């Protein structure tokens, strides 16, 4: 029943009727309670500086989580984004370090991400291999490629490239603006385009979609490419913010963070249901949790336990709440 319920949330744009949305996205309540608790106990959680930090932090996650969520909705998944992120950051940083213009550097990064995504997409959508296996393999292979190409850390990318991670647009950090655009694009895609509907159809019942004349390969393939591009963009942003990239460690574990945000946000791993609003909430949930625990000076291992438990609790609440609401 839960699956059916979450489907109902799908076509809405981010703004939608209050109570219904609350019932469908109990994570909003969880998030609200968490934010209130952190603010009350630390006193500085809601400071603009801290919120900016969280937003900047969550931005890269959101940029990758949106297309990843679309992939999961269509019944696939991409575990290779952590390595793609590293490759994108390295290529972008390297080009910038070579004196290329920031635009060329970013385009280079995106091209690298598109290439990885295309390989994933061809193998999963056209050859029909398991997305889990293919992208898990690519996670390792792309990491190896990145380390082979760039065995040493890169740094010193110049002021032009730093704009990507550091600029302010209307008071918001550039990555936050990019993330907002990606979120809006994802929501509009699902709500307004035919392909957005097809994503759900393919995820729910691929064979029925095929028999309905829907191209069940092209749309997921495109999503793989877009996910690769998004991961590379996130990598370039991280490289810009840190003004350095290390091939071996950049973005390691990122794929799990993305998947967690997507799943906590109510996207079903079995495909066919989920919403962009949910993804946004999942991303914010992770961002606030990490930040708040640090503010509270929780010792390392307790932080780990608290993070793990909070994730499970958040997921459980999101899962059970719709039932209780009936």
């Amino acid at each position, binding site marked *: 029943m839960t699956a059916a319920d979450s489907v109902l949330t799908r076509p809405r744009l981010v703004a939608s009727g209050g109570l219904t949305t609350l019932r469908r996205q109990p994570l909003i309540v969880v998030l609200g309670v968490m934010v209130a608790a952190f603010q009350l106990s630390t006193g500085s959680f809601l400071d603009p500086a801290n919120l900016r930090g969280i937003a900047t932090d969550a931005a890269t996650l959101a940029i990758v989580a949106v297309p990843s969520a679309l992939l999961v909705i269509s019944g696939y998944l991409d575990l290779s984004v952590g390595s793609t992120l590293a490759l994108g950051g390295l290529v972008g940083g390297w080009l910038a370090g070579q004196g290329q213009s920031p635009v060329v550097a970013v385009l280079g990064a995106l091209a690298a991400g598109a290439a990885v995504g295309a390989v994933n997409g061809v193998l999963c959508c056209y050859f029909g291999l398991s997305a889990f296996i293919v992208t898990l393999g690519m996670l390792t292979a792309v990491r190896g490629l990145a380390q082979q190409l760039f065995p040493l850390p890169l740094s010193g990318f110049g002021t032009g490239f730093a704009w990507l991670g550091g600029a302010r647009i209307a008071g918001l950090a550039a990555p936050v603006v990019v993330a907002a655009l990606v979120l809006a694009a994802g929501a509009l895609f699902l709500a307004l385009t035919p392909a957005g509907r097809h994503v759900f159809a393919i995820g729910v019942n691929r064979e029925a979609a095929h028999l309905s004349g829907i191209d069940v390969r092209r749309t997921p393939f495109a999503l793989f490419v877009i996910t690769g591009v998004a991961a590379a963009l996130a990598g370039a942003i991280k490289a810009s913010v840190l003004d350095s990239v290390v091939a071996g460690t950049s973005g390691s574990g990122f794929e799990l963070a993305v998947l967690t945000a997507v799943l906590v946000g109510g996207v079903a791993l079995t495909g066919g249901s989920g919403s962009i609003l949910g993804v946004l909430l999942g991303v914010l949930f992770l961002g606030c949790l990490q930040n708040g625990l640090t503010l509270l000076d929780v010792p390392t291992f307790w932080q780990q336990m608290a993070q793990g438990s909070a*994730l499970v609790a958040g997921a459980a609440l999101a899962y059970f709440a719709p039932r209780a609401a009936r």
Partner: protein
Amino acid sequence: MTTRRFATVPSATRRQFLAYSGAVAAALTAAGCSAPPGAATATRPSASSGARLTKIGLDYPFTQLPLYSTLVKLSTAGAKKHGASLLTTNDGANADTQASNLTTWVARKVPAIVSFPMVFEATEAIAKAALDAGLIWVTYGGSLEHQSADIQFSFRKGGTLLGTAAAKWAAEQLGGKGKIAFLTDSTIELGRERTKGMIDAFTELAPGVDVVAQEQAIDPDTGLAKTQAILAKHPDLNLVLGVTDAAAYGGFKALQQAGRKKDDARTFVGGQDGSAPSLVAIKQGTFYRASAALAPDDIAHAIVEVPRAVAAGKADPGVEVPIALVGPGDTAAIDDLLAQNG
């Protein structure tokens, strides 16, 4: 920016950085050079007699680290000079993979094995088997009961050097007052040693400075996120000391994003390892002011020469790779380190 924020992060990631630090215990004295006394004396005489060694196996588990590539490149060149070839493993920071790779090497009778055990206790039996098979076993980054020799690093010393330098700076620039945050590691032994050296030295020498946070961070993303959170609570933070240069570099970026000028006179960031981005920042005269650095040349030299010394029957063939603090004035040393990395 970052996303690594919960418990699912593989601990391997953490270990890599640790090891980065551990690995790096090399030396750069103020004179800074590629012929540190310990290594040089132990190994140079063995050159001729050690020539019989045709293969040296380097088992360095943290293949993700930039240092790994550097060490393999330098060691391969060093071995080649003596007509030997360098074998490597691909452990991928996994202790189980390491054990199985080492067992394979022992079975294949690789004549000399230089291994950095991820878990020392777990490697004891393999080292014994290697010795029983008549192979040379050199322990890297510590010592085992069964071994031919070892290559030692003083992890705590790196931390102590950094803590001392920071305390001295705080006394001079802040009048002994201010706020400090430590980016620490408590997940593996090397990290705990470095952390302890750093914190103990600093708090003892600068008791007037408030310790406002001790947060686990070994990579730049985490360093950035944690420092951002700390800054939200303590916008007037003065010092950030990192258990790794990578984490400290994240703190360096967080401070800048909070509006701190690159060369702010009342800010101090320091780390350990001597990694390239940090060295560049120090050289540029930013508030990234210190790194406890190891010289890859020294380590690579030891990797080749310690086994050769054992083969040549030298007494006491082991080496302790020295570590030294580099600061803004050490331009030559920094250039030398950067050249070795490159």
